């Protein structure tokens, strides 16, 4: 501690007061008579652990290379929930170097209803089992570690699979299944390694980025002028996203000067202005905070993008759902499903498939499912298997007939209405509900599957003339990344990092040839853009669209009871339900209207019942390639992105002309009644009946009107003939 000079008058007093500071210099001042007291002036060293160089060396900082989930989380990105009696999930694990002696840690917390003695989660790495975890961390999360055999973890992308078998402490019916869950704490699950060992290179970058993203810390993109150069970097971000599959990380864009606010970065991208040269092209460096920094020059994005894809080949960006060729039986094995084994008391297994984009049957044609299956013996009374097509039950099958149990059953032919299907993604579902036995006690353990569906089960979809309807889903099938942009209003209100993220989940895989009859343009906008929208769909609906985004969430009623459809088709049940009776006049009115204009409702009443966090719409059916995605400026867009990523190649995605999104309900879509049906092949005698059937289904009025006129004319002619004939006789 140093001391500053003492004024003459006070020197004696001060010297006494500061006697311990014997070394303090006493300086006589020239002509200074009433100056200040002696004071500390130099800045002393801070007290506490930072002081002195003799403080113990801190523990080396470590990071956990985390498990990356198979799908984007809508709410809590740090947790993945395995639920039900049986569940399986595969996670991606980026490892920067080949590891020996690695230990895989899995952090879990389970529902108290799980009986740990009979429950287990099997862990495998790249297909090799490494151990079994007992789900017994109930109060707080706990960590189990597994030794990974040398050579099993390779540098780059690895796959960790968890297969859960969860048994209820007391019950075992379908309801019990909903109380069984184990949460995987993703940031804490994976391989732990010292931060300093993270190699400075693309794999180190990806591993660090994974660790950071797992903790919900966006990947930072530092640019000299974020606003001006964001569009240029879009391709780079696209390649980066490609490495992560269709689960793009959140990206924040900023300048070089950031405040960390406790958010430790493990990786980031820094873009230099073009004034600076990087002789060897983009390079990786270690930042002062230990983060792996990808350094590149502005404008050098193509070279930069190849660095990532060269280091870790991107997973296929093609539509992965298999496509069915209409007109011939297609087995489940051909749909990448070798067979289905249903285990537990509530089972729901999906088989996803696609139909050609120009396939369309709206009339009374039927498809057929030829089901080869069996179910277990001694199942309790009341067990059912529901077979569904796109959510509609096409067959109820009992699982409680002893004479049929335990043996392969004859092929069951299940016809279903082909108009349940639609172009693009579709879904066949097997949903089983098996009561507890007895319902209020623990079940007898059984490892055998409740039911088995053979891979030889086949699906036959009738062929269709090449027909198409305009719709959101059809445009999204062909949308290139370059067609997606922010509106002017959105540019100043939405985060710049949102555009590349949305582009990743909205754009079609590269190489998709479009057969749309207009150019494609997808604008990301905000409610303020609604006033500027123009087209036959949105005309006169601006207020309603704005109200949908601004209104409080509508209560949409309780979730559908899985049992409610059982026996629901008996007509006499309606007589016992008062609400059905009171609604009868409205239903009758709607039915009569549907005869004339088709089944689709008008947009205004449809919107009036809804609220939304996001709206995806096709404003003008004459320009089917033009879409708008409207977002709340201050909203949490994570759920929208997660849903789009998940539904991009699946049945539950947005479709029709207007689709509204709420996290609780997903996408709800409205189809315009006057959609223009487009025949994409010549009208022939062979396809005429199908084509007319489709037209008539869409707009019955166009069929009923001419028929009525023809009938009237025919009647007049017949009446005239009759009159003329009768006169001659007279």
């Amino acid at each position, binding site marked *: 501690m*140093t*001391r*500053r*000079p*003492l*004024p003459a008058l006070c020197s004696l007093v001060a010297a006494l007061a500061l006697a311990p500071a014997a*070394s*303090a*210099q006493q*300086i*006589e*001042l*020239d002509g*200074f008579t009433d*100056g*200040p*007291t002696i*004071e500390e*002036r*130099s*800045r*002393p*060293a*801070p*007290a506490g652990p*930072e*002081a*002195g*160089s003799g403080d113990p*060396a*801190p523990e080396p*900082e470590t990071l956990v290379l985390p498990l990356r989930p198979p799908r984007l989380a809508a709410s809590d990105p740090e947790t993945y929930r395995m639920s039900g009696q049986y569940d399986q999930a595969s996670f991606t694990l980026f490892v920067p170097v080949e590891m020996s002696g690695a230990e895989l840690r899995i952090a879990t917390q389970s529902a108290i209803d799980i009986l740990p003695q009979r429950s287990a989660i099997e862990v495998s790495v790249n297909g090799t089992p490494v151990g079994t975890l007992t789900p017994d961390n109930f109060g707080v999360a706990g960590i189990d570690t597994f030794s990974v055999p040398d050579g099993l973890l390779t540098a780059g992308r690895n796959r960790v699979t968890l297969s859960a078998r969860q048994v209820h402490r007391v019950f075992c019916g379908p309801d019990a299944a909903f109380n069984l869950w184990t949460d995987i704490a993703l940031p804490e699950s994976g391989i732990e390694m010292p931060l*300093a060992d993270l190699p400075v290179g693309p794999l180190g970058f990806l591993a660090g980025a994974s660790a950071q993203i797992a903790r919900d810390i966006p990947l930072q993109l*530092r640019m000299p002028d974020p606003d001006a150069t964001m569009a240029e970097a879009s391709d780079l971000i696209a390649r980066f996203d490609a490495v992560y599959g269709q689960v793009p990380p959140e990206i924040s864009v*900023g*300048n*070089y*000067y*950031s*405040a*960390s*606010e*406790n958010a430790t*970065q493990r990786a980031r991208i*820094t873009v*230099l202005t073009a004034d*600076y040269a*990087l002789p060897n092209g983009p390079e990786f*460096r*270690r*930042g*002062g*905070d*230990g983060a792996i*920094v990808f*350094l590149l020059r502005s404008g050098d994005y193509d070279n930069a993008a190849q660095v990532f894809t060269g280091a870790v080949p991107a997973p296929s960006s093609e539509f992965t759902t298999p496509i069915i060729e209409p007109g011939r039986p297609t087995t489940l094995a051909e749909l990448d499903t070798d067979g289905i084994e249903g285990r537990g008391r509530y089972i729901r297994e999906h088989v996803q498939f696609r139909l050609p984009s120009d396939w369309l049957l709206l009339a009374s044609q039927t498809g057929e499912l030829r089901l080869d299956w069996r179910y277990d013996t001694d199942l309790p009374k009341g067990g059912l298997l529901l077979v569904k097509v796109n959510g509609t039950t096409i067959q109820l099958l009992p699982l409680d007939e002893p004479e049929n149990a335990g043996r392969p059953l004859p092929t069951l032919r299940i016809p279903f209405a082909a108009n349940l299907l639609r172009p693009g993604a579709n879904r066949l579902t097997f949903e089983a509900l098996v009561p507890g036995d007895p319902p209020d006690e623990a079940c007898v353990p059984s490892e055998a599957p409740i039911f088995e569906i053979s891979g030889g089960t086949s699906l036959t979809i009738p062929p269709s003339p090449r027909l198409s309807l305009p719709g959101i889903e059809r445009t999204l099938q062909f949308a290139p990344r370059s067609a997606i942009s922010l509106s002017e209003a959105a540019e100043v209100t939405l985060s710049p990092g949102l555009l590349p993220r949305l582009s990743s989940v909205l754009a079609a895989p590269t190489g998709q040839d479009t057969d749309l009859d207009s150019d494609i343009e997808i604008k990301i906008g905000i409610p303020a853009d609604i006033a500027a929208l123009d087209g036959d769909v949105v005309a006169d609906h601006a207020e309603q669209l704005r109200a949908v985004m601004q209104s409080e969430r509508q209560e949409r009623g309780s979730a559908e009871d899985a049992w409610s459809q059982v026996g629901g088709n008996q007509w006499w049940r309606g007589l016992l339900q008062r609400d059905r009776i009171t609604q009868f006049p409205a239903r009758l009115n709607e039915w009569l209207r549907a005869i004339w204009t088709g089944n689709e409702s008008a947009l205004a009443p449809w919107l009036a019942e809804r609220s939304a966090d996001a709206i995806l719409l096709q404003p003008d059916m004459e320009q089917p390639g033009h879409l708008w995605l409207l977002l709340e400026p201050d909203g949490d867009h994570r759920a929208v992105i997660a849903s789009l990523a998940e539904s991009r190649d699946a049945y539950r995605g947005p479709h029709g002309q207007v689709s509204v999104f709420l996290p609780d309900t997903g996408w709800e879509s409205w189809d315009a009644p006057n959609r223009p049906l487009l025949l994409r092949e010549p009208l022939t005698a062979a396809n005429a009946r199908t084509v007319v059937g489709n037209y008539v289904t869409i707009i019955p009025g166009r069929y009923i009107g001419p028929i009525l006129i023809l009938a009237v004319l025919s009647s007049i002619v017949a009446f005239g003939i009759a009159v003329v004939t009768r006169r001659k006789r007279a």
Partner: protein
Amino acid sequence: MKRRQFVSALAAGLALRHSRASAQPAELGDQLRDVWSAWRDAHANGSGRVIDAPQQFASHSEGQSYGLFLAALAGDRRTFDRIETWTRVNLAIRSDALMAWRWLPDSPVRVPDTNNASDGDLFRAWALLRASDRFLVPEYRELAATIAADLAEHCIAERSDGTPLLLPAADGFRTAEGFIVNLAYSMPLALEELAAAFGLPVLAQAAEGAVRLSAELAEGGVVPDWVEVTESGLIQPEGFSFDCGYEAMRVPLFYIWSGLADHPAVRTFALAQRAAPENRAATIIERGSGAILETSSEAGYRSLSALSACVTENSLGSGMLPFSVEQAYYPATLQVFSMIAQAQGAPRCIPL
């Protein structure tokens, strides 16, 4: 660069002119807005008092002035006015335009010593000058002129060759043999801008004198916190630190900021920092041996170390850290200043 060459370059004013061309203050202020907000929220209260928590929760004229300068740079008029108001009421209580150097919240007499600290006054005058242009308030310029004039009148001492130097305070630093200076108080760019704005060449000469003195000292090691200037030469002032510690670490910072990245004081500081353990920066360096006596892991000190290393090695990109709100007032301020110094005096050293 040899000392003679360096001094010649300084005299020509090339370095300072270059620094001004590197980044426009308004543009830099926009870029630093998030960092400024984080600094303000962490270290200034609603009344405009900048709090140095580890130092008895005191407020110094230095801290108030640093806050004023950052607020002006960020274009934060509201915070600027609050800090300036608090400063006028609580520290600008002397008969001249200079401030008392410290305000203690828990002391019976909040300002027990009315002596000033010339670094605080210098930065306040500089901040007012910048704010006058930024916020179009002529009164700020008038006050800046008064402060600068009082600094020139009360806080200048001359070496035997007539070279003026900035004293640490109006009172108390003259000795029987000469006077004591703290070279971190003589921020060259601030002195030159005030000199040019108000026709006070003595301030510009004081800046040049300090830079020359630092170069002399750097021949013998890192620039010390305090040095006594006497007829017979430069000596260690008794009772004052002669190591490069928390005071003198601002010398390389201010020189880089002022476009003097080639100054030997920067180089000696950077070379000494190389011996610091990984993820730590030296905070006290023994002048004679260059031995590290104390280190810190706080982001501000590490950023300053990384910046000095970058300019010395002429690297592209530096290891400066993201601003941390976890650190105390002083390293936090040094970190923001390091960012400004990088943007204005070492544009190649972009934080990676």
